[in-house]
């Protein structure tokens, strides 16, 4: 076989396995000149969004490692963080202490929700993605019950400014102005007009290091084994169910902490909707970064955040420039994020099928060569 066809096939393989990121890079390359944003503005936006979202997306990595796919269980962690923030706002603990306290309060709530979710997902093996998605809908109902009816009536809420006028239930928006960017502003530096929230970035880097370290632990090794072949892992004596459960709990707890980081950057919390789209956007970003249902790396997280959010910044402006209507751009970015998830899922399945068909081709090729040898 000639060398050229080999390198050609390698290039084709690279293109097909990275088609989603490449597609996004192309779209962005087209959009940038149309929109005409200054590089400083664009960079500023990207850095802000990177520090805002990266931690949340990192929380998705561990369940993928354990073979549980793209997991909407993180939505549960987001809910826990919101409940924690409602309390800290009510107790009027602001700034860094407020953020730290919110993180601490969110941990037990996330852990309990994660345990519940993990138990259910163990019963629905192989269908984790859709099951966790539906669980997040169901838990959204429970969340509403707690926040809309119980808070202020059963659960004591001290201050009226976050309660609905009727006396119980939380307003649809909770003001977090006083913890806004509290984390980001510590150690923030300005480089060439780009503001870098150093502490938040350090926390994210630390999280990456923890994930790298975690892969090397016995638990991490077990998770990777379970993720690739549950039956083999079980035969080797690994407690498969427990390992999967732990991975989901770790993921929801991390998602809770990530959501606190996300909301402190926003400075405002939409009580009933902040959590509902966060899972979808995080998963879309990870897929845009080139991850698949069974494989995701830290590199995918960063590439994904950068590409997906650059798209988010550019799309409405580009839409406005081209059609004179900003709504079109807004529509486009929602459309794209769902589209990305769909395309990534289809590509995952076709890839699996193509690998299977490969065996047949090998058989045919072996026969052809044997035929030649005989002739």
């Amino acid at each position: 076989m000639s060398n050229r066809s080999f390198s050609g096939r390698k290039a084709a393989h690279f293109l097909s396995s990275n088609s989603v990121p490449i597609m996004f890079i192309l779209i962005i390359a087209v959009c940038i000149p149309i929109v005409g944003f200054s590089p400083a503005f664009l960079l500023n936006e990207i850095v802000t969004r990177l520090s805002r979202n990266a931690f949340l997306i990192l929380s998705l990595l561990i369940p993928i490692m354990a073979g549980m796919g793209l997991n909407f269980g993180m939505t549960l962690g987001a809910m826990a963080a919101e409940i924690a923030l409602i309390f800290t706002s009510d107790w009027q603990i602001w700034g860094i202490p407020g953020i730290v306290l919110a993180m601490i309060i969110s941990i037990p709530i996330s852990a309990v929700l994660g345990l519940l979710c993990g138990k259910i997902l163990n019963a629905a093996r192989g269908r984790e993605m859709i099951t966790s998605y539906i669980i997040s809908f169901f838990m959204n109902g429970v969340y509403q019950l707690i926040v809309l009816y119980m808070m202020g009536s059963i659960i004591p809420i001290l201050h009226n400014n976050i309660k609905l006028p009727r006396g119980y239930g939380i307003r649809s928006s909770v003001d977090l102005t006083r913890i806004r960017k509290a984390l980001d502003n510590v150690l923030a530096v300005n480089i060439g007009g780009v503001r870098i929230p150093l502490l938040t970035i350090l926390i994210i880097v630390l999280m990456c290091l923890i994930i790298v370290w975690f892969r090397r632990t016995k638990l991490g090794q077990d998770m990777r084994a379970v993720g690739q072949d549950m039956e083999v892992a079980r035969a080797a004596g690994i407690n498969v169910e427990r390992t999967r459960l732990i991975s989901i709990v770790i993921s929801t707890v991390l998602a809770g902490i990530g959501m606190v980081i996300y909301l402190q950057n926003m400075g405002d919390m939409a009580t009933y909707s902040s959590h509902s789209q966060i899972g979808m956007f995080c998963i879309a970003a990870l897929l845009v970064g080139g991850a698949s249902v069974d494989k995701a790396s830290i590199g995918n997280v960063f590439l994904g955040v950068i590409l997906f959010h650059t798209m988010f910044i550019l799309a409405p402006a580009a839409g406005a420039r081209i059609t004179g209507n900003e709504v079109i751009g807004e529509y486009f970015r929602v459309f794209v994020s769902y589209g990305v998830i769909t395309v990534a899922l289809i590509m995952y399945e076709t890839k699996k099928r193509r690998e299977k068909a490969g065996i047949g081709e090998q058989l045919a090729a072996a026969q052809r060569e044997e035929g030649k040898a005989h002739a």
Partner: protein
Amino acid sequence: MSNTTPLLQMKSIRKNFFGNQVLKDINLTLNEGEVLGLVGENGAGKSTLMKILFGMNEIRETGGYEGDILMNGEKVTIGTSFDALAHGIGMVHQEFSLIPGFTATENILLNREPQKKSIMSEVFGQRLNITDRKKMDAASAAAIDKMGVQIDGGMVISDMPVGHKQFTEIARELSKDNLKLLILDEPTAVLTEQEALALLDSIRAMSRRGIAVIFITHRLQEILDVCDTVAVMRDGVLVQRIPAAETSIPEITRWMVGRNIDTDHSGRRPVPETEPIMTIEHLWVDMPGETVRDVNLEVRRGEILGIGGLAGQGKLGIPNGIMGLYASGGSVTFDGESIPLNQPRRCLDRQLAFVSEDRRGVGLLLHESLEWNISFPAMQIHDKFLRSLLGGLIKWRDDRAIQEVTRKYIDELQIRCTGPRQKAKELSGGNQQKICLAKAFALEPKFLFVSEPTRGIDVGAKALVLQALEKFNRESGVTIVMISSELEELRSVCDRIAIVSGGRIAGILPAVESSERFGELMVSQVI
């Protein structure tokens, strides 16, 4: 080799699956470092015996076994695989049980990784220990060294050739310090010749280290090359146990297949010398576990052709590939015209029918009535049992015709049921098989593939099913190709029998030939 207490003694082992006695009073002893070759046809009970020894779940779930197992003279109970491992018994299964994305080293030491403590593990427990890569590399290198072959511990399994995967599995067992007995279930089946030779060498190396090996294979030459002792099983009985040096391949083959009752071949019709109705050329089929590599075969019009061979050699792949259930290639000509492969509907349109070995999966609509099961394909494919209304605009089901035909087959095949409306899932295995046949007969095909028609059914039903096939062939002139693992069954109804070995046709003989000749063909090209 010590002559004191044997390493392993199995005493009067019996096992029945749902009243079906598959092991009858097996007695087997094995000394330290002894290599025992275990041979037998499929269904002879080899696998069941090994599953008992290795404590597989399947045995416990079906009611355990009777008899005693002694290790070093002490009675042991083996309830689970973990018990077996604790007693120093290791097993390498036919199917690989490896993590594809892990390196050989990670697989060899799976869940037994050497670990280092860390601060986090002091707080959160053992599982946050760090895996000690250096010690892992050393331990896997030591295990690989015991085999005496070269494989790269750092290589990821999915990038490995098949042979190296097999060696990785063996190394995993060898890395267990207390290993005394290793069971190898057809380890050479997937290996190239070179790799198989290397494996035989490593078996010798293990034996020198005092590890006893039970070696299951269909390649009899390997048995003679490497084993100290040969044990032959047939129909759940250990028929022969003899030092390998004192026997030969023809003798072993005879013990494997030879039943002393000679089938009566008088009153047989002569083998039909008609023109071919189906010509198969260079067929390959990608059916997992039954790969067909290169099959060339001519089926004569009006005959009953048997296809036999050992399990996993590809005999089941032939009908499944031609009928389009698994991806296939090559060329198939039927009645002068070529049949497009991978399109089941086109085969059915050409009046080919297939009774699958997978009764419950492919063969039956389990939750539907017998009438539906029998008439459904005929209705779908040939518009039978349908009345046209309004000039064919609406097709109406002809329930009366359906009932009639169902009753006819219930009588003819003596199907035991409460009536045509009974659900298929409520019938016994034998009666379900008869429904599958009735379904194929109702299609009125020109050509019929029947795959393992008597698998898992009792003797009475067996005879009826075979009679029905013979009658269908004689009365309707339908050409039948019957695939079965039971040679005697093929010999009783077929005109000619083709033996598949290694995904190819090893030879075609008239059914009246002696069973030894068939046995030789079966093991001729085993891979």
